[in-house]
């Protein structure tokens, strides 16, 4: 599991690095202590920063949500451009009607890779997602009803997404989609 996770993070390194940076920045703003600024340690924490437990539910939620959301916002436009170009339209390295070279294919490829790398790093570390879920919905939880209702969808999504990232399933999906787009 750990090696799958690390492989996934290495394949999406630009996104992993940026996600760790956003985490650090957000925790700094939220005044949550961060242990180190080594963003790319090759271990189960790759692409994340080791931090202390946030002191409130709001900080915990924002710490989990905002870094990934920033990566999502920045990754979506280039990823969509690349996916529409290569996967949907099927743009290849040459223009089929004329035989001319199509440099836009390589632009789409880069956009797909960078955008995809950002999108493969939008969920918190599994233990952080679990912690948020427990703070919200465990028997010991003292979260209010409104918080429980409002945060249900995002925290559930983050929990599921964390599992996807843990097993690098999102990276696998992106790769398969790209290969289908290029060859099929």
């Amino acid at each position, binding site marked *: 599991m750990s090696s799958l996770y690390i492989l996934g993070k290495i394949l999406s390194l*630009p996104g992993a*690095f*940026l996600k*760790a*940076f*956003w985490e*650090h*920045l957000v925790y*700094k703003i939220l*005044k949550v*202590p*961060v*242990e*180190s*600024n080594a*963003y790319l340690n090759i271990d189960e924490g790759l692409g994340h920063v080791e931090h*202390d*437990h946030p*002191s409130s539910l709001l900080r915990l939620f924002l710490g989990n949500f905002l870094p990934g959301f920033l990566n999502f*916002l*920045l*990754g979506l*436009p*280039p*990823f*969509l*451009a690349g996916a*529409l*170009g290569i996967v*949907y*339209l*099927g*743009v*290849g*390295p*040459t*223009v*089929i*009607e*004329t*035989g*001319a*070279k*199509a*440099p*836009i294919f390589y*632009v*789409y490829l880069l*956009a797909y890779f*960078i*955008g995809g790398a*950002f999108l493969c790093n939008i969920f918190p570390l599994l233990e952080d997602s679990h912690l948020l879920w427990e703070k919200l919905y465990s028997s010991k939880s003292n979260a209010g009803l409104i918080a429980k209702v409002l945060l249900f969808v995002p925290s559930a999504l983050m929990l599921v997404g964390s599992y996807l990232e843990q097993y690098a399933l999102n990276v696998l999906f992106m790769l398969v989609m790209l290969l289908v787009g*290029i*060859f*099929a």
Partner: protein
Amino acid sequence: MAYTDKENENLGLDTGEELVPEPEVKDLVEDEFTELIDSGESFDTVEELCPICNKRTVDGNDGSGSRYCSVCRKDMLKTPLRWQGFIAAVFAILFSGVGFILMAFTGLIANTVSMADSFAKGKQMTGALNYYHEAYKLTQEYNSQLKADNLFNYGTRSFVKEMKITALTQSPLTVGQNLLQANVESSAFNRFKLRSLMQHKEIYEKFMETRKAVEPIFIDYEETEAAKIPYDEIIAKLDKLKEGENADKYSPYIIEYYKTYAAVIAEKGTEAELEHMLKVKELAPEAGWLYNYYLADCYNRLGDTENLLKICDDLISENKNSIQAYSLKARTLATKGDMDGAFGVYKELESYNAGSSAAYALSAELHRRNGDVDKAIEVCEEGFEKSEANTELFRQYAILQLLKGDKEKAYKAASDAYNSSYYSRDETLELINTVALCAKLAGEEEMYEESVAFLEEHGQALAPSVVGVIDGTLTLQDVFLKGKGDVL
């Protein structure tokens, strides 16, 4: 407390204590546990040490959940952000901005292609083709705006989808020709993506080979009178092609198609044409593009409405935009006297081809044949206003004006139809006969002569109904309100 684990040795912590020899550790831990159990204190309250300094207890013991001591936490708050992170963030924002622009351009192309896809899914093939053309035009527009050739293109996948529909609605020969012009062999990517179209290329190549072999058989008879054409000899020569040493180079159904051509030039009659065309269907049922409309025409000429309606239904089920098939079906039903059925067909045509001038033309024709000339004129005028009027709409208007007795207006509409056909290349026998009739009745002799000459140039003559009206043996009402309701 002392530690023996190697992990903590390298933390750089100056404990000032000597490490306890390993065998004694076990005793120490056991003593501590025994002491704890004896005191009745809960395990939860055992104070945890900060994993960074290993000296002080963690703040979380007070219920805050912190995993570090207060001193280390204070230090951790000062952990600096990495400058590389800022560079990465700036790069990501810029890249995302560029990605957004790229997404906008590509999204507009993809949106047009998706419209085409949804039309194709609904079997509205002509609509689908129009949208694929639109997508292609869009890429050309972007490239010219950005002054960059081949920057944007609508993609190989869109090309393949467009070609598949072209094969269905026009002919695989068009696709085969396009593929030969396209850059098919240039890369493995293209070969793989275009594999589903390769059959059309083979059809085209076989067709060309067959045509090359057939042409010498017909070349001597291009100017020959029908009666002097040795029909049986031509048929025998064509049959021989199927058995010769190069037989596998030719398509038997294309050879059969040429037999139909032989029947046409030798004027062997509709039955002979039908017989050969049915053989084409038998040999290549998938080649509907080649035989369907021809069979429909044969059945129409023979008055075999049952088979004609069946073919129209097949054509419509393949392409809901097949205006010609709807018109043929509606006219056949109208001729049979089933006006409700004919109007039903018009409604179906209108629902899939809203705003098309062909729909207005058919509606006007049906109202006329139903005896409601005023309503038909109203429909035509609405069509002129709301659609890009086509040849047939002008022709219907000309017929209606004849029925109303306004010969000048009728002639003007017929002229408009004639001019429109010049640009859209849709001259028909019906059109030329209608133009000739309007010209004659309006006293436009020059135009009348031109129309007759045009027919003669194409081996045709004025339709008996037109001659009848000019001679006075038939009335306009006989021709346009009864029977087939048209000049032919």
